[in-house]
């Protein structure tokens, strides 16, 4: 394998590395630098040190966004994983066992296909779909029904108290199916004998779930939590398209990504937007490291 190795290696790596450096690495590196300037696109950028960060700390919108991330960070993984775990247990273990092989309840295959479907739709399309579902008058899917039976319409996206939760609902709606399939794959790799032995010992399904499925699925759950957490730090497309007034009403649903986008491409405050990007970066990294640390435990051998 010696002959002509280096020309080959360089030939194969040149294009991908160049493309990646220009469009990914260079912008990431520049972002930190721009965040220290007062650049607004017209004149040359001036170095201002940590001024943007100082401004950030006093920015009401910034803290609003952080607060929403914290809500999403707790609620999105918790709700999604709880629902997906229950469903994947139903679809893989809760059925009759025959010949030592566990199976799901009736219709498992069908449910798995249907639940997963939102995953292949673009989030922006889903957001438009839910805009019509949530519409506040009789043309909305939910309020159309509510008003027909004489109830008051729910102002999903207009009422600042429930707007964020309406958006969270969409995120959960989209995510559940994926995690059902992910957990199903994890459950499928748990040997059937373990369930059999547990059942012989008189374990009920609830015990099976908490004593067998849950501990043996721990690694997959950890991955799911990190993925959902990172999703909770993004949520750009759904908020940008679905919320009224871009993160409104009055900032009730705004997220950092949206504030970055708005500051950069509406107000041309590039330095300030980049400072927000750096803040987002540190939040995401902190979250990932923190989660992996906290959820670390002896993985169960089987």
């Amino acid at each position: 394998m010696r002959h002509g190795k280096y020309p080959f290696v360089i030939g194969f790596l040149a294009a991908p590395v160049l493309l990646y450096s220009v469009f990914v690495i260079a912008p990431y590196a520049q972002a930190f630098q721009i965040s220290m300037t007062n650049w607004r696109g017209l004149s040359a950028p001036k170095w201002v040190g940590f001024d943007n960060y100082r401004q950030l700390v006093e920015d009401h919108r910034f803290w609003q966004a952080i607060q929403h991330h914290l809500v999403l960070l707790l609620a999105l993984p918790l709700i999604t994983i709880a629902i997906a775990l229950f469903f994947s247990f139903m679809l893989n273990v809760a059925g009759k066992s025959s010949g030592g092989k566990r199976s799901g309840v009736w219709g498992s295959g069908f449910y798995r296909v249907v639940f997963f479907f939102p995953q292949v739709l673009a989030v922006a399309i889903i957001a438009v779909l839910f805009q019509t579902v949530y519409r506040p008058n009789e043309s909305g899917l939910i309020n159309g029904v509510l008003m027909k039976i004489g109830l008051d319409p729910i102002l999903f996206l207009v009422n600042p108290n429930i707007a964020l939760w309406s958006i969270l609902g969409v995120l959960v709606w989209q995510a559940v199916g994926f995690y059902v399939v992910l957990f199903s794959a994890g459950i499928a790799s748990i040997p059937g004998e373990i369930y059999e032995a547990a059942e012989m010992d008189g374990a009920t399904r609830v015990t099976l779930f908490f004593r067998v499925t849950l501990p043996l699925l721990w690694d997959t759950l950890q991955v799911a939590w990190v993925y959902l957490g990172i999703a909770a730090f993004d949520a750009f497309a759904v908020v940008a398209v679905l919320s009224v007034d871009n993160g409104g009403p009055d900032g009730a649903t705004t997220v950092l990504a949206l504030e970055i986008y708005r500051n950069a491409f509406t107000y041309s405050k590039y330095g300030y937007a980049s400072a927000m990007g750096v803040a987002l970066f540190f939040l995401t990294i902190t979250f990932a490291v923190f989660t992996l640390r906290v959820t670390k435990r002896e993985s169960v051998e089987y």
Partner: protein
Amino acid sequence: MGTQLTTTRTDQPDGPGPRPLPPVEKPRRRKRADRGEVSLLNGVGHLALFFWAVIVVVPIIWVFLASFKNTTEIFSSPWTLPAELRWENWGRAWTKANVGRYFLNSVLVVSCGTFLTMLLGSMAAYVLARYKFWGNRFIYYLFVSGLAFPVFLALVPLFFVVRNLGLLDTYTGLVLVYTAYSLPFTVFFLVAFFRTLPNSVAEAAMIDGASHTRLFFQVMLPMAKPGMISVTIFNIIGQWAQYQLPLVLVSSAKDKWVLTQGIADISVNAGYEADWSGLFAALTIAILPMIIVYAIFQRQIQSGLTAGAGK
């Protein structure tokens, strides 16, 4: 684990081995309670599964039906079948609202983007996985580090890099950026995959006089097919769903907008123009092909996407 399981063994009538003092009443009562619990769980479970399926399917069917209605029907009878099949709503969305254009743009950008991603990604991954050379580790980690960074951090500088290269508002710019941002995962996944391929076949091919390049394209790439398919699916779905990159990079060239951008824009305008049925038709045109493709390839799509997540 074993100890945890055996602690629950107290009341099995026909469990193996000697049991201490089995009370006569207890096992039967426990069994009945068991069955009750099981049927309750199963009942609630079935109901929940069915309910969730309804929640997933109903909005889509509802949009599909509304795409044939007129505005009066949409407002007065949100939950009935349309009086007639008004295909003109679809026609209006396709041509007047430019959905056809956006759709073809998406197809063009995603097919070029995915092809380029797979070509460059597999080349880089192959070299990084199977050749020892100075800087190998460094380049590998350079690629993988891209997985950890939020795209929004790079958005502002990226905009200026693309503008300075004269690629703003072009298909080329979009394809190159899609490719660059798809590389970290593609390389990460495929490096792991190429490492698992056997050495013997490669050596045999080398002895037969194949060049490095030929070895890659004619031997290794075909062997890596399962991994390649998974990553291709992952990239197609990811690039098809892109919203923020085109929003920033082709914002002022409306004829180059992709589908997600176009539909989001139509939903804003539908209110002003009171063309609600046009919006529903546009949404349906965006959703329907995905349903069809998913229905055909659902097995590969599910395993492809979860293989990506499991790594």
